[in-house]
C-alpha cells in the first residue's frame, strides 16, 4: 500500500462519514418537518458571519480545550475518565467558595487562588476514582460516572442551600444561584463588548504545557508507558498505580479549572446548568483531536462552532431544542467512527481489496519464475 492510497483512503472515509452524518441528520429534520438544507446552512455558516459569532465560538472552545487536555492525559495513561462533568462541578463549587469567602484580597492574589481552588476541587473529586482504581481495582468508568451523579446533587445542594444568593431569599424568587462574585475574581474580557475572556490564553498556554509534559518530561513518559502497556511499564520499574492516580488527578484538575474559568470568565456567579454538557463533549473533543494538544485545540474550536450553530438554529429555524442535540449526536457519531476507521489498518486493507488495486502481472507459474532466475534448484 502506498502513500497515495492512504491519502485517498483518508479522503474517502472522511467524505463518506460526513455524508452519512448529513444524511442521518437530514432524515431526522425532514421527519420533524423542518427545512433540512436551511438548518445546515445556519449551523455551519451563521456563527462565522460576525465578531459576535466568532467570539462565542471561542468562548465555547475554552472549556472544551481545558477538559479535553485533561481527558487526553488520563486516556494516554490508560485510565478512562468519564467524570469530567462532575469534576467540573466540584471545581466550580470550590472556586465559588474561594471567591466568596476570601474577601478583600487584591485581584493579583484572589484570581489565581480562585482558579487554583477550582483545579483542586476537580482534582480531589477525580482522585477518589483514581485511588479506587489503583488500590481496589474498581472500574474507573463506573466510578467516574457514579461520581458525576453525586457531584450533580452536591452542586444543587450548595446552590440552593449554603451558597444561595441572599437576594434570592429576600425577594423570594429562590433561583438557585450564588451571589455575584467580587470583581477581583473576574477574568478580564479580551475584546470589549463580547464575552471572550482571557481564559482562552490560559487554555492555549496549557495546551502547549500538556504537550511538553507528555512528550518531553520523564513523568509524562512514565504515564504514557503505563497507559500503553501496563505490564511492560511495571517490568521497567514504573510505579503504575502511582501514575494512574496522578493522571486521574491531573485530569480532574483540568476539568475543575475549566469550571473555574467558565465561572470567572463568563457567568461570574455559579448558576444551574453552567457545565452545559462540556464534560461529555470534552471527551469527544479529546478523541477527535487524537488525544494530542495539537489536535485538541482545532477540534475544540470546531465543536464550539457546532454547539453555537445548533443554538442559533434553534432560534432562527425553529427546530426544537432536542433535535439540535440529535444533530450533534449524529455528527459526533460519524466523526468518531471515521476516526476509528482511519486508525484501523485492517479496515484500510479491506478497502484496498474492494477497490482492487492494480496488480503487477506476476510471473505466471513457478517454472517461469525459476526461468527468470528467481529460484535456484
Amino acid at each position: 500500500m502506498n502513500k497515495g492510497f492512504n491519502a485517498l483512503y483518508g479522503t474517502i472515509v472522511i467524505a463518506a462519514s460526513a455524508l452519512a452524518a448529513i444524511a442521518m441528520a437530514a432524515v431526522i429534520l425532514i421527519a420533524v418537518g423542518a427545512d433540512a438544507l436551511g438548518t445546515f446552512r445556519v449551523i455551519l455558516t451563521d456563527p462565522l458571519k460576525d465578531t459576535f459569532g466568532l467570539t462565542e465560538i471561542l468562548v465555547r472552545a475554552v472549556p472544551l480545550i481545558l477538559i479535553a487536555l485533561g481527558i487526553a492525559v488520563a486516556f494516554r495513561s490508560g485510565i478512562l475518565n468519564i467524570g469530567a462533568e462532575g469534576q467540573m462541578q466540584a471545581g466550580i463549587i470550590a472556586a465559588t467558595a474561594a471567591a466568596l469567602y476570601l474577601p478583600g484580597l487584591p485581584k493579583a492574589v484572589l484570581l489565581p487562588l480562585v482558579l487554583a481552588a477550582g483545579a483542586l476541587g476537580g482534582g480531589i473529586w477525580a482522585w477518589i476514582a483514581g485511588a479506587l482504581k489503583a488500590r481496589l481495582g474498581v472500574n474507573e468508568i463506573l466510578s467516574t460516572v457514579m461520581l458525576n451523579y453525586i457531584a450533580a446533587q452536591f452542586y444543587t445542594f450548595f446552590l440552593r442551600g449554603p451558597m444561595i444568593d441572599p437576594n434570592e431569599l429576600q425577594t423570594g424568587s429562590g433561583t438557585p444561584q450564588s451571589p455575584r462574585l467580587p470583581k477581583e475574581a473576574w477574568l478580564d474580557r479580551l475584546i470589549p463588548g463580547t464575552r471572550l475572556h482571557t481564559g482562552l490564553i490560559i487554555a492555549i498556554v496549557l495546551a502547549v504545557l500538556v504537550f511538553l509534559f507528555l512528550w518531553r518530561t520523564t513523568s509524562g513518559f512514565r504515564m504514557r508507558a503505563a497507559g500503553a502497556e501496563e505490564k511492560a511499564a511495571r517490568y521497567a520499574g514504573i510505579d503504575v498505580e502511582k501514575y494512574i492516580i496522578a493522571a486521574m488527578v491531573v485530569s480532574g484538575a483540568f476539568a475543575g479549572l475549566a469550571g473555574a474559568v467558565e465561572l470567572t470568565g463568563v457567568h461570574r456567579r455559579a448558576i444551574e446548568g453552567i457545565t452545559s454538557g462540556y464534560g461529555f463533549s470534552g471527551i469527544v473533543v479529546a478523541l477527535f483531536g487524537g488525544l494530542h494538544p495539537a489536535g485538541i485545540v482545532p477540534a475544540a474550536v470546531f465543536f464550539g462552532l457546532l454547539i453555537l450553530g445548533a443554538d442559533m438554529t434553534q432560534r432562527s429555524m425553529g427546530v426544537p431544542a432536542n433535535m439540535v442535540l440529535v444533530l450533534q449526536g449524529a455528527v459526533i457519531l460519524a466523526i468518531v467512527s471515521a476516526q476509528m476507521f482511519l486508525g484501523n489498518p485492517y479496515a484500510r486493507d479491506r478497502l484496498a481489496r474492494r477497490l482492487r488495486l492494480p496488480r503487477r502481472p506476476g510471473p505466471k507459474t513457478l517454472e517461469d519464475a525459476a526461468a527468470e532466475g528467481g529460484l535456484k534448484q
Partner: protein
Amino acid sequence: MPSTKRIESLRLEGITKRFPGVLACDDISLEVGAGEVLALVGENGAGKTTLMNILMGLYQPDYGRIVINGEEARFRGPSDAFAAGIGMVHQHFMLVPNMTVTENVALGLKELHHPFHLDLASARRRIAEVSERHQLAVNPEAYVWQLSVGEQQRVELVKTLCFGARFLILDEPTSALTPQETDELIERLKRMTAELSVIFISHKLGEVKALCDRVTILRQGRVAFNGRTQDHTSGDLAALMTGHEVNLPRNACVEACGEQRLKVSALMVRGDRGNLALNGLDLELRSGEILGIAGVSGNGQRELADALAGLRKVESGSIGLCGEEIANRRPRAIIDAGMGYIPEDRHTEGIVPSFSIKENLVLKDFASQRFSTASFLRLERIDENAEELRERFDIRASSTATSAGSLSGGNIQKVILARELARGPKVLVAVYPTRGLDMGAEEFIHAQLLERRAEGVAILLISEELEELMNLSDRIAVIYKGRISKVLEAPEATRRRLGMLMAGLADE
C-alpha cells in the same frame, strides 16, 4: 464448514508486500505438494511471517497470487483461509487468556454459535477427538493464562486442527518448546503428513533437516535458495541463510568467579495458580560467572525470574544482591541496585509495543542523568543512543522512530537485549534470551553474553536449550519442582545427565 477436499498443491506466485519503509516480501514464489513438508527459513525480518500472513488472508499482497489445486484463491480474511483448509499457528499466540481452552476453540468454530447458546459440549468432543488422534494432550477446562508457553503451543495446534485444517502453517512452533516437546512435535508432524501438508518455519536447522523434505530460504524478502534438505548439511544451510559460516562461541571456563553478587536462600514464591512454585530454592552467583538454570518449563523458572526482579511477592526467604537485601523491594529499587532482566514474554513484558524503538531502548533509563535534565527528556541523547544500539545489535528497522510492535519477532528480542546489555547491570537475569533469534543473531548474543561475563557481570541464564546452556555456562543448576536439585560444573554436565536430572530422576 471447511471443505474436505485435499490440498494437492498450493502455490504462491510473485507475492510482493511493502510496509512503510520496508519491502517485506519481494516477488516470492513457492510451491507445496500433497503430504509435503516445506521448511521456510531466513534471518529475523526476512519476511517469513508476513508471507504466511498473506497466505492466511490477514494481509493482502500488493502483487502476486495464491493458487490452490490449480485455481486462484482470494482470501479476504483468515476465515476464508480456514474454509479452504489452511490453518496457522502464529508466532505470537492468538488465544484469549481469561477463557478456557474449550472456549477458545469454540470461539473460532462458527457452526457452534447458536443464537442463545454456545455449544461447548461439541467443542469439547472435537478437542477430545483431535487430541486422541494426534496424541496432543490438553486440559480442555484449564484457563489459558494458567498454561505454560509450551502448553499454549499445544492448544494452538489442537485449535487449528479442530478447525479442520489440512494445510498447516507453523510459525516458529518450537521456539518455546523443551527439547523433548520439540522431538515429540516433530514425530507427531511426521505422522500427520499422511493427511496434511505443512509449512514449517524455524531457526533451528536440526529440526528442519529432521522434518522437512524441501527448504526455502528467504533473505531480505527474496527467495535466496530453494532445495532438498537431504542434499545440504545444516552448516551449508546456515551459511546460505546468513551469508557467512556460523560458529556458536563457547565459554572457555577460565578464571571465573569474583566476589559473590547474588545469593538466594530458602526462597518461597507462589505461582499464578496459588501453588508454591518455588519451595525453598537456594542459589548463588558470582561476578564473572554464567550460571545456567536447566529445567523443564513450569518448574519455577518464571517465578524465580519474577521474584528476582521484584515483580512477584516473596513469601519467605531472602535474595541478596551484592549484599543488599532485595526480596519484596519495588522493581525500581531493584533495577537501581543493578539488576538487569530479559523477561520471557517479549511482547507485553519486554517492550511497550506502541512506543518507538528509541523509547523502548531507554524504557528503564529515561529518567537517568544521561537521558534527562531536571526531569526533561534529552531527545538528542535518546536518538543517539538508539542509533548506536541499532548499529551494534543489528536491529532491522526502517528507522528508530517506528513502533517496536511492528518489528519482526527476532528484532523485538534484539531491542530488549540491546537495552538490557547496554545498561551494564551487575546481575543479569536472562530468560530464554535467544528464543526466536536467527542463527547469526544467536551467535552474536552468545558472544555478547560472554563478553559481559568477561567484564564481570554475573549472569543467570534460564534456558531450555541444553546446547546453549552447555556452551555458555560455568555451572549448570537443575531446577525441579521449585528447588535446585543439583548444581553441576560445566565439564561434568552431559546431555544425558542433565536430561535425567530435569526429569527428576536421581543422579547416578
